[in-house]
């Protein structure tokens, strides 16, 4: 079902959209076929109508003699509506499939790109990209794409009929038609750029809102509601101005079309009228009758209709292109600096889990060779570190705030590339790593689902045991409804220390060969801390445990103590 499509790295949003359209080529071309057929029916409808009108009005024939024409007329009317229905259903199905594919590609991208990169754009903006921006591509695939072919096919069919009836009228239509795409391209180029800006601004607006709303309680405490209120107003006013600019251009393109349509209809009507009256005698004026005149007059707007639709859908295209360009930027960013995280899929990690529990002999090892803690190539935070750790050993990293403790953990987790020095894992490079960041990740869900998110195979009993080890089982049973307690996104109902311990319980339930803990005791009191130390002591025999902390009481479980403050003075402070 969720076959992950291999990421072809398109360079532009246009390539991106095209490649997805070609994946659904069959459904889309069926839609185009249905659309062209409906044009044929439309032609039949008006030809028969005009023919009846001429016979009746000019030749004074009675309607009863033309029942076969009437039947053709009725059939054409009905056939045309049915085919239109068919066209929409084909193109909408295609669009749905495409949107699903694009969404799973984005998910796959997130699976492999560093979470630190994800953090750079706010999650609100990323979510908006996945939800709204992909949704905004609907118009492109279900309307614009089929229409760009229909805008050629239908007018051509109509032109053939008109040319057969009167070449001068056909010539007039032919001259005015190519002008339209020309204008559209001119206008469209500007609209495209604007649209990209518009989509960026929309994303920023979403991110800005999420940020301000998430911090609304802080804002309120600081009495800054008014200032932020004005800020929000300013942002949405900017948004309005940019959108208006886009729309003015988008509408201009359709206005050019309207103008040509109106002028063409008007001049055709006047030409036909004058010819029929006898005021114009040059050209093929003699061949005009009420029948041909009416057909041409009615077909003139129909000739322009597909083009008009196309221009109406043109801002669908511009919107989709803007969104696609942003998406391509996102997808390519991962391709440039691929972090080391093509790490293990779930089956492997489950296998690992079983093997660690069965055969303890399967030891893991990490080696840091002259590794400097560095955010980027240029900003080196520490002297080179040389450390090797085997399963069963514990490393405690200390150092004052800002010396790079968390950064070092991120490097080991593979979230920041190791730019200085080397990092080796044994027996294989992509060992699963359990990582407990400073702020526990808590889902807006029950405790049981929170635990299961990272320990999918743990039973209810095991969960209760793990919570018990951390002293949570009694606390939760005392005040809450146990495992089914719902924790909110801000962790309502649980204190900071309790959330931290729930996060630790996940680690106990599904210990990866390597466990990274960032300030596991920061929010804890002495008694909870004792629980944690006890739990860590029982855990340490089976894993490589790496802890970054300020807390002196955690140093006692260390086999190796790395102090980033003193590392500056003595090179290679710790060697094993």
């Amino acid at each position: 079902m969720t076959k992950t499509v291999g990421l072809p790295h398109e360079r532009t949003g246009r390539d991106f959209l095209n490649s997805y359209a070609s994946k659904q080529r069959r459904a889309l071309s069926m839609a185009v076929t249905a659309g062209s057929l409906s044009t044929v029916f439309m032609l039949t409808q008006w030809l028969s109508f005009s023919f009846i009108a001429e016979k009746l009005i000019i030749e004074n024939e009675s309607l009863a003699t033309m029942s076969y024409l009437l039947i053709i007329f009725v059939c054409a009317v009905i056939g045309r509506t049915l085919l239109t229905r068919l066209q929409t259903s084909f193109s909408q199905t295609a669009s749905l499939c495409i949107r699903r594919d694009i969404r799973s590609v984005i998910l796959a991208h997130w699976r492999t790109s560093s979470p630190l990169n994800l953090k750079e754009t706010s999650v609100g903006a990323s979510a908006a990209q996945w939800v709204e921006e992909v949704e905004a591509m609907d118009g492109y695939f279900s309307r614009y794409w089929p229409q760009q072919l229909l805008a050629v096919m239908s007018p051509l069919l109509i032109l053939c009929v008109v040319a057969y009836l009167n070449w001068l009228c056909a010539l007039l239509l032919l001259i005015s038609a190519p002008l339209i795409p020309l204008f559209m391209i001119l206008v469209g180029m500007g609209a495209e750029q604007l649209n990209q800006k518009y989509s960026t601004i929309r994303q920023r607006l979403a991110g800005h809102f999420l940020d301000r709303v998430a911090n609304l309680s802080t804002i309120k405490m600081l009495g800054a509601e008014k200032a932020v209120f004005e800020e929000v107003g300013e942002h949405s006013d900017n948004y309005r101005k940019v959108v208006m600019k886009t729309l003015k251009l988008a509408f201009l393109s359709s206005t050019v079309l309207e103008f040509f349509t109106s002028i063409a209809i008007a001049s055709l009507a006047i030409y036909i009228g004058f010819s029929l009256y006898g005021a114009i005698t040059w050209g093929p004026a003699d061949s005009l009758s009420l029948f041909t005149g009416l057909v041409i007059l009615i077909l003139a707007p129909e000739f322009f209709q597909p083009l008009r639709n196309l221009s109406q859908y043109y801002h669908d295209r511009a919107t989709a292109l803007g969104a696609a360009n942003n998406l391509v930027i996102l997808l390519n960013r991962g391709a440039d600096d691929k972090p080391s995280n093509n790490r293990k899929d779930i089956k492997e990690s489950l296998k690992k889990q079983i093997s660690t529990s069965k055969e303890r002999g399967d030891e893991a090892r990490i080696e840091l060779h002259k590794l400097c803690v560095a955010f980027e190539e240029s900003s080196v935070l520490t002297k080179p570190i040389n450390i090797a750790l085997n399963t069963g050993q514990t490393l405690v990293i200390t150092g004052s705030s800002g010396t790079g403790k968390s950064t070092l953990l991120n490097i080991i987790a593979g979230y920041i590339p190791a730019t200085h020095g080397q990092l080796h894992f044994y027996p294989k490079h992509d060992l699963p790593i359990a990582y407990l960041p400073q702020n526990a990740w808590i889902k807006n869900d029950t405790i049981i689902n929170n635990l299961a998110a990272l320990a999918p195979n743990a039973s209810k009993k095991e969960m209760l045991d793990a919570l018990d080890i951390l002293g949570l089982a009694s606390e939760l049973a005392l005040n809450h409804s146990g495992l089914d307690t719902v924790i909110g996104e801000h962790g309502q109902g649980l204190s900071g220390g309790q959330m931290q311990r729930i996060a630790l319980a996940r680690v106990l339930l599904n210990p990866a060969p390597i466990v990274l803990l960032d300030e596991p005791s920061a929010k804890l009191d002495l008694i909870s801390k004792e629980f944690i130390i006890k739990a860590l002591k029982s855990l340490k025999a089976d894993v490589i445990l790496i802890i970054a902390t300020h807390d002196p009481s955690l140093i006692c479980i260390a086999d190796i103590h790395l102090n980033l403050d003193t590392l500056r003075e003595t090179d290679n402070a710790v060697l094993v």
Partner: protein
Amino acid sequence: MQYWFNLLLKSQGRRLYWGIFWAFFSAVSAVALLALSGWFITATALTGVAITAGIFVRFDMYLPGSGIRFFALSRTIGRYIERIYNHDTILRLISAFRLRLFKGLSDLPLSELRATSDSEWLGKLTADLDSLDSILIRYTIPPIVATLVILTLTLFLSFIWLELALYLGGSMLLCIAVIIGLTITQTKRVAAASSLLLSELRADIIEHLQGAFVLQSQGLMERHEAQILSRLNCFNDIEKSLNSRVANIQLLLDTILGLVLIVLVIVGLYSVGSSSISGPTAVMLAMLFIGVSEMLQSIPSQFSTWGKTDFSANRLKELVKQPHTKTDPQKVDIEAVSVRLSDHPKIPISQKKDLVFLLATQQLHLIYGRSGTGKSTLANLLVGTGLSKDQEKISITVNAGTSLLDIASSDWHSSLGYLDQSNAILAGTLGYNLALGLQTISEGAIWHALEMVELDEWANDLPQGLNTWLGETGGKVSGGQARRICLCRILLRDPKLVILDEPFNGIDTTMACRIWQNIALWLDPKMVVLLTHERPIFLSDEETISEVCLDVFTK
């Protein structure tokens, strides 16, 4: 939806009427262009035939000709003005809606603010608001304009053939009503369900991304996607059914319009046969109908979003309270605060005995207890967020006998400096974060405060100093730094009551001691409440403090 419609009338009423006028203007021009052309051609054809037959007919060609040219131009211009004008109106409107909503949100009490999760709010604020433009450009203007055009058409036709005009006008108005009603009833539920799923998907994605940090290193990302994907499939199914319902209604409308056209053509032609109307008039009749039916054709797709809009409108409405007329907050002179509470569900010790204590100005009060003993709950009570009128077991009295409940929360907050556990850094510059909510503040004061929390060097080293952007999520700041920035924010104000909830989380003890020394002078004249896990090392014994212990079992 009615609420927003009323707001629309109130704030943009005049623009609405003009918008309708321009839409009507261009629609009439379009129909007239077609009808006049049809009549003109048929009439000239008949005249031409008559002339060739040698009959002299007086026919003025130039008046209809210039009429055609006029309508061609007015249609184009009217359409452009209409679209620009109405879209500008809707964006103004959305901007007004947005601000009204934000005001409503910031007027909510803090406890309610936390009760809704962020991701859902984001959906409310952006997607929901954007979808409200449908109220104007889909549900208000098109049906009104269509009705007006049909009425005009009926009036015009009634000069020619009263009976037919009434039948045609009546049946088309009925057709509009039926199609609108049918579209709304058929799609409302499905569309609302699709909106709901989409907003749940948004929440899922946000959660997924926030969890990426822990999920990815363990290779569990794909597993965690399962829920998202199953919901996505659900969404696709619903969209499919919504699409097919709309397409079926469109089919119905097209069929009705087709049938009416057939009937009209047959009736018209019979009447020409029986000479009750002229040929050109019959053709004009058909052309008029084609023009109008083109206008009606978009009704199903326009009304298919009714359910989505209604869903958004209802969700948003819940959040918009009538805005209060707020006066600027007045600082409260806090001399003493007495607290008495019993049987609080989140403070275990209060279930054993009444918790009673008194806070006095110029004093340091230490409240300590293990995690889960209700420190933050207690802090929130002091801040006034956990309070409600029906809780009789909690009484917090300020000075002599004023209940905290009777003090306006904005007044209370302005006299309060509260360092909570969240380390909230807003996306913005360092300076923005520090000066948030302060009217005027000198740069010197900021640097002095930064010095107290030992961040001055760090800030000095930043590429753009105080103007350095702290990232969308404040990601570039370490936990300890964020903590100190939040503390610094409070140091820049002059609160009467300072509540510090674990002020030195993530900061090592030596630095904590130094910072405590630095801010001691600032704290001195204030009423200070310090909440910690245990008696902190940085407090020297001689500091005069009152202590409250929340532990149920003392060691």
